């Protein structure tokens, strides 16, 4: 069990770093959804099924869809910010 939880936490950290690094915002949104999914698994194992359901349905489901709609209405690729 501890191995599985470590794996879930590692996936979460990797996905979070990837979400911050991706230049393609669609990939970043998918990575965010992965973070939420892993968080909901951890909430379930911490005996908080209410929070796990909220995290899975809102964090991994609806937020992803809303972000994708927002990308569809704006731009998909991150511009290189000039540091002045």
């Amino acid at each position, binding site marked *: 069990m501890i191995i599985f939880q470590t794996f879930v936490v590692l996936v979460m950290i990797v996905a979070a770093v990837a979400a911050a690094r991706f230049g393609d915002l669609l990939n970043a949104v998918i990575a965010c959804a992965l973070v939420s999914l892993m968080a909901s698994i951890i909430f379930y194992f911490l005996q908080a*099924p*209410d929070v*796990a*359901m*909220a995290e899975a*349905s*809102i964090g991994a*489901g*609806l937020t992803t*869809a*809303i972000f994708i*709609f*927002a990308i569809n*209405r704006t731009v998909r690729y991150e511009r290189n910010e000039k*540091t*002045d």
Partner: protein
Amino acid sequence: MRRLISLSLLLIVALGISLCFSGAYFGAEGANRAGKLAQDRVNFGQRYNSRGLEENGAGNIVASVVVNYRGFDTLGEVTVLFIAAVGLAVVLSTRREKPARVRAEPASLVVFTGCRFLFPLILLLGSYIFIHGHLTPGGGFQGGAVVASGFLLVYLGCRGKGLRSAGFTVTESLSGLAFVVLALVGLAVGGSLLLNFLPKGSALTLFSGGVIPIIYVAIGLKVGSELGSIIANLSGEAP
């Protein structure tokens, strides 16, 4: 320049947080206060666990905490979601004059039929989650999110068959009003907001918990219609 500003801001925030922590944990008085706070929290948790069932009649202690003991916070959360939905509608309505994009082609027959088959089942699951919120894990927010994901499926799969956005607005307003009216009736009857004034019923059955299931149904409808109207606004199907 920008990097310098953000670094200095980060430094100030880190300094403030560390000062707060050192004040709370290393000062003798602060340590005493922190210990007392933790003691209070333990007492609250034990009280909810031991008396929650007899005071509210709801089998799921989380439900009685969310709706009754901390119901005022839930009212605030629902209000925040409402303000977010209204703000999104306002922002999107200001840029309507842009030329319409190329219309996406309709989904294939398989997708269309699958959506029409799945949509009532998803609505049923969402209603089950918020109607049984006082017995099983889940509640208004979770059930409402599931209902809204059903509307998302309709908007994705059945293009052009979008539901009227006016229905969302009416449902959302009525259920929000029901929540506030129930809270105020509690205030009028027993002198505290969100008092559980209805008969509790026998524990662990569907008709138990007094006002908790009613408020959860109201929250579920409100969250579902709010998130549904956000999806309707964003996907551009709304009139």
